[in-house]
């Protein structure tokens, strides 16, 4: 695999967003993943979300673990810094990065092997700590990069490409995230960009630990009959609880909603989440109800998608640590070093 630079010719018709960037400006290097890999669709959704949010590309910090999915940050927002860390340990690196500079936008990308198998511990703890970030798991039920072994999210009884049934219980990342204290939790499907893009935008606007479990079929190793993470299976079993319209605080609300068909959640940053109801009553701010509904889905074999849980006023790690407003990485010698006089006093106290 080699690095392929994308030609940077801008088509004059590409429309600039409010920040003055075209959609192309949010792209990265050309993907080297398999044609049809769900991960590429998710990268495209991230690009679309960043473009629509008018984000300054260099204000994003992209972090990932190891895996096909963890390669994805190379393929979006090329003008930002990225960090491909070690397998399963991206959460700690992202936590540290976030501590150093609270002002960047943190995008963590991981796989189901990376986050549910080797990295389940770090996954749990980053949610507990309320790191202000968007954490996306590109969930294909297998280890793509090491050629198709089951991951910990593979459903019990699902069949591998080689015909072997998975005997172990699966880990549901959405349940984990809610249980561990994530304050924004959704699930979507790489093949449904209309659902996915607004979810990513809302997650990025959320000032706390936002998690998205995105089912992302692996065409090379897990897209056959008997798999529960194939395109066909997910399309057939997708049970969307709501449709999200993400409205930035400064935007005017133009869409009309018939009474009783939508719920509104205003996030702390002023952004508004309009959740269009799809059939059943569902209140995503009720954590216990959310856990119940997700468990029901798991029991009945539905892939429950949508915005599943949100706490619109989260308290993030920096708030808990009561850190100064300026990013810690901007503090200089004068701000941090107490100097020789203070040291003299300390010396005196040690005699």
């Amino acid at each position, binding site marked *: 695999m080699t690095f392929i630079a994308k030609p940077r010719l801008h088509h004059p018709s590409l429309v600039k967003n409010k920040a003055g960037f075209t959609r192309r400006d949010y792209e990265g290097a050309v993907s080297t993943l398999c044609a049809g890999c769900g991960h590429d669709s998710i990268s495209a959704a991230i690009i679309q979300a960043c473009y629509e949010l008018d984000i300054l590309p260099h204000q994003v910090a992209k972090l990932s673990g190891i895996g096909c999915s963890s390669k994805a940050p190379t393929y979006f927002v090329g003008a930002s810094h990225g960090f491909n*860390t070690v397998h399963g340990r991206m959460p700690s690196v992202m936590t540290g990065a976030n*501590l*150093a500079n609270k002002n960047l936008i943190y995008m963590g990308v991981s796989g189901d092997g990376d986050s549910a198998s080797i990295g389940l511990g770090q996954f749990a703890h980053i949610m507990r700590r309320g790191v202000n970030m968007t954490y996306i798991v590109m969930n294909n039920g297998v280890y793509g990069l090491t050629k198709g072994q089951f991951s910990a999210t593979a459903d019990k009884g699902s069949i591998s490409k080689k015909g072997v049934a998975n005997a172990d219980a699966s880990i549901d990342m959405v349940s984990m995230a809610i249980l561990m204290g994530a304050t924004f939790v959704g699930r979507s499907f790489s093949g449904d960009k209309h659902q996915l893009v607004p979810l990513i935008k809302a997650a990025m606007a959320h000032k706390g630990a936002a998690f998205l479990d995105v089912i992302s079929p692996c065409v090379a190793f897990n897209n056959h009959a008997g798999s529960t993470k194939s395109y066909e299976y997910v399309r057939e079993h997708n049970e969307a609880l709501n449709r999200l319209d993400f409205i930035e605080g400064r935007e005017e609300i133009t869409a009309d909603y018939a009474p009783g068909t939508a719920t509104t959640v205003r996030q702390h940053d002023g952004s508004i989440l309009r959740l269009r109801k799809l059939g059943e009553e569902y209140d995503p701010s009720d954590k216990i109800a959310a856990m119940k509904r997700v468990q029901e889905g798991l029991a009945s074999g539905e892939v429950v998608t949508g915005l599943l849980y949100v706490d619109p006023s989260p308290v993030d790690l920096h708030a808990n640590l009561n850190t100064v*407003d300026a990013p810690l990485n901007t503090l200089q010698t004068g701000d941090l*070093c107490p100097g020789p006089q*203070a040291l003299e006093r300390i*010396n005196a106290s040690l005699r």
Partner: protein
Amino acid sequence: MPPTITAVNDFVVKFANVNGSGSASANELFARSILRMGVPVSPRNIFPSNIQGLPTWYEVRVTEKGYLGRRGGVDLMVAMNPQTWAQDVKEIEPGGYLFYDSTKPLPSSAFREDVNVIGVPLTAICNATYTDARQRQLFKNIIYVGALSVLLDIDAKEIERLFGEQYKGKEKLLDSNVKALNLGRDWATQHLDPGAVKLKVRRADNVGNRIFVEGNNAAALGAVYGGATVCAWYPITPSSSLAEAFANHCKRLRHDKGTGKAKYAIVQAEDELASIGMVIGAAWNGARAFTATSGPGISLMTEFIGLAYFAEVPAVIVNVQRGGPSTGMPTRTQQSDLLSCAYASNGDTKHVLLFPEDPKECFEFTAEALDLADRLQTPIFVMTDLDIGMNHRLCQPFQWDEKRAFDRGKVMTAEDLEAGKTFGRYLDVDGDGIPFRTYPGTHPTKGSFFTRGTTKDEYARYSEQGPVYVRNMERLQRKFATAAKIAPQPQRYSSPKATRYGVIYFGSTSPAMDEALDHLEADGNHVNALRVRSFPFSQVVEDFIHEHDRVFVIEQNRDGQLRSMLMNEFTLDARKLVPVLHYDGTPITARFIAADIAKKLGQLKVVPFDKAAS
């Protein structure tokens, strides 16, 4: 009965207590009061991996000459723990003293013929004075300090002054402690012969302006002065008190005066994998970050350490070493993580290690490590150990130059990028092997790059080309050579007489070595000495080895790890480096070093070097 030991300002007192009985502060009070009389002391905690109920010891070496290493042997045992009685009594030097609670009579078989016995009915005194069980236990400790002060001629005024400082504003506590102290003093004055113990403290002026501090506390302060803003850690003895001290220092020194907000972030991580990950993330993003740990933590961190080496991310790791392998001897000291740190992680990796000798250098080297990590863009290990980290040690006062500013190393700013400077993340622009980096978020269109543990070219572009890989690995070697020049340089001590013999030592061995050098010199065994203060080794180290026929390498581990590193890094005749190894978990002593070197010198002198080497 051998002659009773008689000594002024030069003896060892050992307290045998039960863990969790409140003896620690009383014993420390004893040590400090002697220090206040101008007589250097060197105390050491010997404690089990347990919270309550198990034996614990506190050994105080009183040393007018200022020999701060452990001496070995006990002149006066304060035996307060029935569980370890036999072992404690056995340890006393012939002609020494046994101080014990004589409330319950003991059979004569419990004592030794050649040891002077001083009984004080501590329990009886307590029971007669206090009704509360906890008070009975706590004040028993103060009462024995009182009795000892009479026996050893320790000035009670100094103890009262220490109480005054400790219980400032808490008059009730102050009064009750002074009262307990006097209970012990009065009993001893009334019932004991003042000459019963011929170990005496006499006022001197040998402490000067030195400070008395634990290495972990000092290293934590070094992290504050060196500008660390992120500390991520996971509790492990003997390093936990370092992170806790950092929190305490920050509470006083690092809150914004106006808003009260913190100019630091401390996270107790879920494990050491996470703590080093957080350090790497923070440093990648331009903050100064460190972690404190011990051997098992290092084992967990190794994959990340390799990433930081190869992706060139700064990190500071203070390793307060303890006895290994595995859980090993968690509350005992060793210098046994040298190899696991120097070459930590898979592939060809090498790391910078600093070896502080005392709390003063713990302070300096931790601050320095934060500069070096930024300058070299790589992990820096501060290799202390339990002996320095968890014991109060007398050392020179901390110093800080008013004009000193953090050296952030080669960082390209938005202005540099705007001015059109070429940015290649892994491009060696001036031959020192160190490339420029940018912090995330620096510039809208220039200077971004992808950080990864896989091979990349000078412009941080992914590559699987052999020549690209080799170029990068060679540059890392150049960077390592730069490290050898800018890390703390070795210190040389020359014997007054020309000699063919040298010794190399490092870290907490220092005070014992200083003393051993005096012993050796006095016995006519002349040796030159070199204290190694960092790895990679400076050229000075190789020169020193070549200047001598034989070099003793003094270490507190089984395998001669520093010696292995010397063999690995230089081209040497293996017979030239003679290992002197002490690794039973107790701090190395001058007695051991001098005796072992004298023995080996004797053997060497029998066989002339030329013949031995052929």
